[in-house]
């Protein structure tokens, strides 16, 4: 009886003691830009982490698209209300890196807060984009993707093409498209997202091993100048304008191009180039035809092409100005995030690249790539060759503005106001002004 009372009493005490402890869990705020199904997956990851331990609570909150979220973060930082973790897109990297006092670099966070963090576990092409010139990893890769080619197998078959052979060169793209249009299998050959930017200049330069800018594509310092007005870009842009008139190519708008995906889904265009993370969307929306996957095309006569493609997507940045005990939690969460199981599940559900070798190997073991043909195209494409100075990524401040300039100049080419060379030269000139402005503001 006495024992039972005692036991009951201690249990009650324990309850009393644990109740405030539950409230005293350290909150870690995570701002992100994953809407829709991707957002649901992200919340699940946070919930699973919260359930796995009792010291920290990760609170994810959606803060709009990448641009909005970056602006919100900056405003919050200036007001002293910044979150612990924020998801920033790859073109915001230059801006974040220059903001030394605002950022708590991941390698330092992991060193200070005693996690057994091993940067070499990550895929080099992924980390390469986010490390400084001394090889230190500044942010945590989370959702990285690379552009690939999707094609309509049924349209290929109807046009008398081999549905199992994806086009490998721009020459193939042209002849396949022509054959598809002539046979009436589709009205247009292909459409592509980020035609002027991520695909049509950034990955184009990397795949052909050409510099996008001086000083190792901007990795070497803020005084870098743009050099993407090379012969290959001129060739592609000239061709694209020609193909647009011939109906081979269909322009779907700036940036991702809101009109691109519907044209592929509806069968109007037979090929579509966009992020590997579009995979889930493509498979869900392409009813009535089978989808094939391929790598991005290259110009066949260029030696060494394809080199390797570069990534896009976003990483997680830790922001300065919080308590040590909170950073312990951040470190633990980032460790959890990069575990093979979490990464593999995220990769398979979304089409983003697995960011660690372990996650890739786990997905192989689980038979994911065998069961889903084409799902390994992206990872093979970024690993085609060891990255060179020209193909490990880009690092320019104010990159979002530079992308806007490229979109505008490309439109001038399509509307016939400028030749490809004029447009590219003007984009370089305007882009360099933007870079100088950034350099001056970040000295």
């Amino acid at each position: 009886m006495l024992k039972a009372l005692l036991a009951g009493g201690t249990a009650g005490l324990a309850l009393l003691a644990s109740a405030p402890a539950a409230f005293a869990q350290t909150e870690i705020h995570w701002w992100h830009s994953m809407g829709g199904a991707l957002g649901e997956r992200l919340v699940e990851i946070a919930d699973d982490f919260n359930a796995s331990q009792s010291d920290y609570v990760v609170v994810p909150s959606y803060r709009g698209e990448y641009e909005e979220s970056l602006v919100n973060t900056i405003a919050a930082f200036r007001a002293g209300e910044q979150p612990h973790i924020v998801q920033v897109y790859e073109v915001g990297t230059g801006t974040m890196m220059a903001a030394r006092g605002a950022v708590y670099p991941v390698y330092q966070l992991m060193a200070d807060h005693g996690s057994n963090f091993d940067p070499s576990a990550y895929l080099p092409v992924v980390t390469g984009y986010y490390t400084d010139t001394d090889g230190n990893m500044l942010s945590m890769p989370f959702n990285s993707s690379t552009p690939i080619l999707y094609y309509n197998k049924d349209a290929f078959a109807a046009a008398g093409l081999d549905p199992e052979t994806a086009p490998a060169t721009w020459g193939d793209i042209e002849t396949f498209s022509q054959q598809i249009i002539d046979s009436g299998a589709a009205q247009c050959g292909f459409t592509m997202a980020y035609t002027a930017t991520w695909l049509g200049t950034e990955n184009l330069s990397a795949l052909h091993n050409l510099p996008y800018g001086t000083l190792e594509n901007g990795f070497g310092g803020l005084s870098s100048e743009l050099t993407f007005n090379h012969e290959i870009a001129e060739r592609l842009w000239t061709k694209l304008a020609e193909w647009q008139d011939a109906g081979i190519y269909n322009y779907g708008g700036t940036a991702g191009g809101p009109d691109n995906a519907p044209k592929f889904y509806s069968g109007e265009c037979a090929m579509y180039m966009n992020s590997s993370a579009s995979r889930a969307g493509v498979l869900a929306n392409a009813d009535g035809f089978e989808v094939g996957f391929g790598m991005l095309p290259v110009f066949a006569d260029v030696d060494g092409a394809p080199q390797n493609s570069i990534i896009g997507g976003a990483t997680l940045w830790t922001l300065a100005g919080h308590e040590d005990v909170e950073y312990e939690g951040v470190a633990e969460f980032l460790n959890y995030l990069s575990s093979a199981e979490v990464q593999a599940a995220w990769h398979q559900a979304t089409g983003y690249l697995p960011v660690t070798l372990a996650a890739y190997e786990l997905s192989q073991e689980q038979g994911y790539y065998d069961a889903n043909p084409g799902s390994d195209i992206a990872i093979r494409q970024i690993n085609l060759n060891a990255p060179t100075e020209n193909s490990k990524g880009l690092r320019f401040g104010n990159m979002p503005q530079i992308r806007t300039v490229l979109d505008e100049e490309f439109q001038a080419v399509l509307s016939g106001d400028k030749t490809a060379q004029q447009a590219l030269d003007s984009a370089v000139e305007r882009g360099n002004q933007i870079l100088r402005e950034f350099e001056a503001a970040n000295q």
Partner: protein
Amino acid sequence: METKRTVFPNKVLPYLFVAPQLIITLVFFIWPATQAVKSSFERADPFGFSTQFVGLTHYIRLFQDPLYLNSIGRTVMFAIAVTAISMGLALLFAAAVSRLIRSSQFYTTLLVWPYAVAPVVAGILWWFLFNSSTGILAYMLRYFGVIWNANLNGTHAMILIIAAAAWKQISYNFLFFLAGMQSVPHSLTEAAAIDGAGPFKRFWTIVFPLLSPTTFFLFIININYVMFDTFGIIAATTNGGPNQATNILVYKVYSDGFIGLNIGSSSAQSVVLMLFVIALTFIQFRYVERRVNY
């Protein structure tokens, strides 16, 4: 004529009465505007770690930038088109509705509806109608041999945003014109009718001149609407494209400041825009008002 003055026995009380309005103006207008003026003379990194005074650099650069000068030209064109179309159609509708007796309420309700639509939604609506692959208007235009593509054709994009901006504003203008017409004394129009003036003549010689205070008021309101409130329409449809064809001043302030994170230049642009509208309003009151019949 001497206006009647209310004299408060308490010296503090009147200030208390105006305080809420003053505070709101200070906090939401004067203070941000001062900040904008201040940062237009500075160059700062986005996070605000380093700020240097650069004097008039941003302003000088703006007026040397051909893209900015083009943007001014486009804004003027956009403002004239939207104001003319929305006021013209609103006047037409108001004149039509004021002739109705029984069904005027019904038409008024219908015509006022679009005003409840937010600019962003108005933009999306028209974007759908004019979408080159799925839009019904773009589809119909094909019968007239027009290959509509607002993604590439700057003129098409401009027409799209003018249509959306003007459509939304018609309701507002319509309401004011209708109210203005109803306050025109019937005896005047009846007398004119007896003298043999037709409806058209009555409108031009009696109603329209008597409406001039309303027209003048709407003119200023519309210019301000075009200069500032059309931002949502552009953000939702063209994003200032293609190739800057619809990049009007207010949108450029946003895209340079919030996408480009160039706070200095963006502030300088908003100061220019502010001066522009102040000057315009001043000119309107100084010169246009003289010709207005109150």
